């Protein structure tokens, strides 16, 4: 892409998002931003699998998702896989804050069964410096220790800078943790949650946790100053994660991402394209993805969010959809409800 067209796109997208954030009611169907990537065919397939409880065979559901999405032994064999769950904080009786350890274990087993050379797990919690404490209290630590799977505290990783491919923020480069030099696939594994600043937090927002706190602070101050929606877009566009597996077995509604209430949804959502996965999750939550600024801005650029352009596999959204509670005093929750 030429420098001129990059600048043009940047100006257009920035202006668009500013308009959106200012409350402009753009009709979903009329929104059009230029495509900068191929968001068609296999990348826009999303799998939704029923998973009523954490006691069930989650690995089998993930393996079915792989099959439906064409993730094969030939593709995974010999690869080093990086799983990035959402670990934020831990509090007694608030397991619904974080990606459930049994979903992480199921994903580890599913990738190993496809011949992955190694699976590693990592997170850079946005609020806390003591990642090990969260790891242990969340129950993920004991599971990784038992399975001999390494955990990497991304906040403490020395990073490497790459050119910002999104250019929504004024950051010319983004610094990613050094471990990413050494992995073949990056998998975002969020929890299905509402978010009091971003509207929803799913596989794209989960990527805040890959940005090392060493450079971005706690709670990732640099990114917050640059704008949450803008930063989500830049990180997704620059990192280009390979896959998403969303823990929607029990999600969080209301005042997410930490103070909300548990919501039993009984789903696992998977796909190669993060905006397609997140917009599907939003619909499952009774939320209009076009009203979530970063998803709207990602549409047809980072991937499809239009339902008609997402090839849905597995169980139907309609049979599983439940309205997540949205709070009237939270500005980011206004106008989100899917009509």
């Amino acid at each position, binding site marked *: 892409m030429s420098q001129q067209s990059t600048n043009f796109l940047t100006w257009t997208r920035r202006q668009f998002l500013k308009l959106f954030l200012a409350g402009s009611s753009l009709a979903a169907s009329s929104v059009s931003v230029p495509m900068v990537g191929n968001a068609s065919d296999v990348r826009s397939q999303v799998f939704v699998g029923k998973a009523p409880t954490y006691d069930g065979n989650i690995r089998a559901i993930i393996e079915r998702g792989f099959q439906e999405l064409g993730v094969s032994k030939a593709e995974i064999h010999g690869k080093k896989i990086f799983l990035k769950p959402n670990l934020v904080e831990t*509090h007694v009786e608030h397991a619904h804050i974080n990606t459930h350890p049994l979903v992480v274990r199921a994903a580890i087993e599913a990738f190993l069964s496809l011949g992955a050379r190694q699976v590693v797990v990592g997170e850079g919690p946005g609020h806390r410096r003591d990642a090990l404490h969260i790891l242990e209290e969340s129950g993920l630590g004991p599971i990784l220790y038992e399975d001999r799977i390494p955990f990497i505290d991304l906040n403490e990783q020395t990073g490497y*800078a790459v050119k910002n491919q999104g250019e929504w923020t004024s950051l010319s480069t983004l610094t990613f943790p050094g471990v990413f030099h050494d992995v073949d696939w990056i998998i975002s594994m969020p929890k299905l949650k509402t978010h009091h600043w971003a509207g929803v937090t799913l596989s794209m927002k989960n990527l805040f946790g890959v940005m090392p706190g060493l450079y971005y*602070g*706690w*709670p990732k*101050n640099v990114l917050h100053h640059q704008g949450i929606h803008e930063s989500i877009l830049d990180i997704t566009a620059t990192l280009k994660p390979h896959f998403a597996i969303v823990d929607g077995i029990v999600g969080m509604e209301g005042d997410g991402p930490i103070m909300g209430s548990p919501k039993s949804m009984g789903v696992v959502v998977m796909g190669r394209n993060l905006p397609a996965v997140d917009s599907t999750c939003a619909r499952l939550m009774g939320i209009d993805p076009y009203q979530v600024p970063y998803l709207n801005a990602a549409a047809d650029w980072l991937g499809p969010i239009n339902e008609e352009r997402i090839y849905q596999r597995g169980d139907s959204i309609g049979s599983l959809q439940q309205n997540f509670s949205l709070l009237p*005093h*939270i500005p980011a929750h206004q106008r989100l409800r899917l009509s």
Partner: protein
Amino acid sequence: MRKRLLQSTLTDIMKRNLSDGGFSNQPHGMFRPDATAWAMIIFKTQAGHEELVEAAGKRLERSQIIDGRVVLSQDHLDAVWPTPLSILAWQGSSSSKDSWSKAVAFLLQAAGVHWENTDQALVGHDTLIPGWPWSEDTHSWVTPTAMSMLALASAGFREHERVQAGVRLLVDRQIPSGGWNYGNTSVLGKELRPFPETTGLALNALAGHVKQEQIQSSLEFLLEHVSTFRTPLSLGWSILGLRAWHIVPDLAPEWINETLERGHRFDGYDTASLCVLLAAGLATGGLESLLPSVPQESRLY
């Protein structure tokens, strides 16, 4: 803390001493200013390591840029948070006095971004009180503010207006039911929950500045939970926080031993976290009790 365990931990840290004098944060890692500063703080408490500390201090000086800030790396000059740690590490060193002085001067003029909070329901703290940020041009938060207060107090500026403002900031950011998190008491009207490591650190920074009744609920938060912590940062800072207020849990040495022994679960701990835990085992009070004392209100630059 068992003596043999202390010695083997010091030996482990020593293995991270690089040929240029600095320390890495992990075995076989690259130089890190924070790991170097923490290692200096710990090795200064042990006899016979003067040359090692001196060389580490010189390496740390190379992370300082002209305005006095000590940066995480040369390609992230905005990441200024290692500055107060470096001041603590250089404390009392005659050969690093100039660097120490420049870092103190930088800290006295540096501040986070502050604005008037017109809607207390949005975030529940006074956004105008100046403190210190993790990264330049961002808001002030609990950890960098508390570390900067400790550094300036150790440098003789305990009564300085910036330290006093830091006291106001920490008191304002204390969660009503006790403790501190990263620095928000509430968001959109909902009170948030505290963390052990930031609570222990804030209690260190406030010791001697406020009455115990002002932070009693935070002490109680730690006392209620500290026996369950078995990771270096949560346990280390909790013990240091309690010790800063003359509370010494009887079982603290055992908890430290257990935590050190659990390190294999994580392929060992990083240098900075290990040093926080060792500091908790070695200190007779808060973190300040490990540092060389300097006369207050000295003007050294």
